[in-house]
């Protein structure tokens, strides 16, 4: 009898796994876009969590006799049209979007992944029906879908989250379905069938972990777009209602001041939106680079 074959380069598989993780982490640390993106997002998360500690003023407290003051030592970012502190509003404004955008994206991702899994796995009539509905939703831009629904049920943070989630689900479903289709052709799926696994097991235990890569990338990409979309909805007046210090809303409320050269109430929230969206996109970009390798 020849000796049992062992793997000469590794002590144990556990250390192999650890090594794989450290390898991936090292790769992540060497991806600048991922790092910059993560840093900026982290910055805003900290702002959101510690807003009450960081912000110098109450973001909702008007002081209309001191409205539209330019940036100064007392008000680093100036005051807005109601005399509220722009800096404090920008800091507090991170809260809404940092809760709404991930929740909406998560909702869309979970829903879309489920639809995509089912459609990609079952094929046939189930797939046809699901994909036609998905296609129908895809034929509408997210903003239009959102307007349609928000007109029906009225704007609130919850509805915005739901509607963005609804808008994202078909997009994610498409991605997931494509990934599932190629996964389902692989023989490990047949191997599962050959031991009479039930469909949910095959979908969620066998296939799902293997499509998590694209799902994760799609999640981060969508997250960036969620920030974009929620801000746009707020701007159009269909999102989070005033007086919330929401960035998009603030811009909508204050952008006419620009004409009078009162740029600070608008510029800072605009920069905040831009920084979050860009950061999330950079993160997504970096993540896909890391996962690709």
């Amino acid at each position: 009898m020849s000796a049992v074959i062992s793997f000469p380069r590794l002590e144990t598989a556990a250390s192999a796994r650890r090594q794989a993780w450290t390898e991936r982490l090292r790769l992540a640390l060497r991806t600048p876009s991922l790092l910059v993106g993560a840093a900026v997002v982290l910055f805003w998360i900290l702002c959101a969590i510690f807003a009450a500690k960081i912000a110098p003023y109450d973001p909702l407290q008007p002081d209309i006799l001191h409205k539209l003051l330019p940036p100064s030592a007392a008000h680093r970012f100036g005051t807005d049209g109601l005399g509220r502190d722009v800096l404090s509003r920008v800091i507090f404004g991170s809260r809404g979007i940092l809760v709404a955008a991930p929740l909406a994206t998560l909702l869309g991702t979970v829903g879309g992944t489920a639809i995509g899994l089912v459609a990609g796995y079952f094929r046939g009539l189930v797939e046809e029906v699901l994909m036609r509905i998905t296609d129908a939703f895809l034929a509408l831009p997210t903003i239009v879908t959102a307007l349609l629904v928000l007109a029906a049920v009225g704007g609130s943070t919850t509805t915005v989250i739901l509607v963005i989630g609804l808008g994202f689900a078909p997009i994610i479903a498409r991605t997931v379905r494509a990934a599932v289709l190629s996964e389902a052709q692989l023989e490990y799926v047949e191997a599962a069938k050959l031991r009479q696994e039930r469909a949910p097991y095959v979908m969620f235990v066998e296939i799902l972990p293997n499509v998590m890569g694209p799902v994760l990338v799609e999640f981060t990409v969508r997250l960036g777009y969620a920030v974009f979309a929620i801000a746009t909805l707020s701007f159009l007046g269909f999102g989070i209602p005033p007086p919330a210090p929401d960035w998009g809303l603030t811009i909508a409320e204050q952008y006419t001041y620009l004409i009078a050269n009162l740029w600070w109430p608008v510029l800072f929230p605009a920069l905040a939106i831009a920084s979050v969206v860009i950061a999330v996109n950079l993160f997504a970009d970096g993540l896909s680079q890391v996962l690709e390798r």
Partner: protein
Amino acid sequence: MLRFLLRRVALALVTLWVLSVIIFLASHALPGDVGRRILGPFADPRAVATLDHSLGVDRPLLVQYLTWIGGFVHGDLGMSLSFHVPVSQLLLRGLGNSVKLAAVAFVIVVPLSIFGGIVAALRRGRLLDRIITVGGLSATAMPEFVTSIVLILVLSISLKVLPISVQVPPDADPLTQIYHLILPSLPLVLVLFGYIARITRAGMIEALESDYTRTAVLKGLPWRTVVIRHVLRNALMPTIAVVATQTGYLIGGLVVIETMFNYQGIGQLLFTAVSQKDFPLIQAGVMTVGIVYLGATLLADISYSLLNPRIRLAGRE
């Protein structure tokens, strides 16, 4: 080929039908009463009931749907509740205007972004690539309303190089009209640039790394010939599909842009319809958006299949 096209058209029609059902149901979830919405909050309840009846909104949903979709098929989109004119009249004009604006945006962005994507791919990993990809990403990430404001401030109010108004005298020559549409199209250009450039870059890189490119290089072809003859043709095929799917995205952007610039396109029309809960206009408007999107993707499918011999020649031989 024909089979492929027929299948695509059939799929698009089915999708459209599903869309019509979704839109119909969604618009009937709108709160409040149609007659009340038309007559306003201060109107007499009896008048409201009479109006509801004359509009047929008190009939069963299925009947209403069939009436609506039947009218739609025959080109009768109903009357706008807020404007009291046929919806088709509003939509046609809005669509025409939007197409003008979108066309200007496309004419600017498509060559620019494709060129950008190509350059980035050819300079992969270098500074220029980083500038184009990160710059494009940033531009894509900025909501249109943010970029619009900056552009208005810089280009119209400070530098005064572009007119802020999109209102052109109706008898103005096409060049003047285009000139007026440049500013509002720029935010769309910015959003689309990063996206199309990215896809182009990805397609280019895939083509550059392909075996046939290797064949071409090892044949001893000059690099220019390799790129132009062998790489571009294959690399740009996915871009075509992407450009088409961006029409949907574009319409979303148009809602914002047209509202900001008060441009009477389909985006603003949708926004107004939704704000005023003008449901015939919402239904028909959203349907139109769907039709435009599906039409555009169909067109992309067709051009893609014409360019791709694999599909063009399928079924032969």
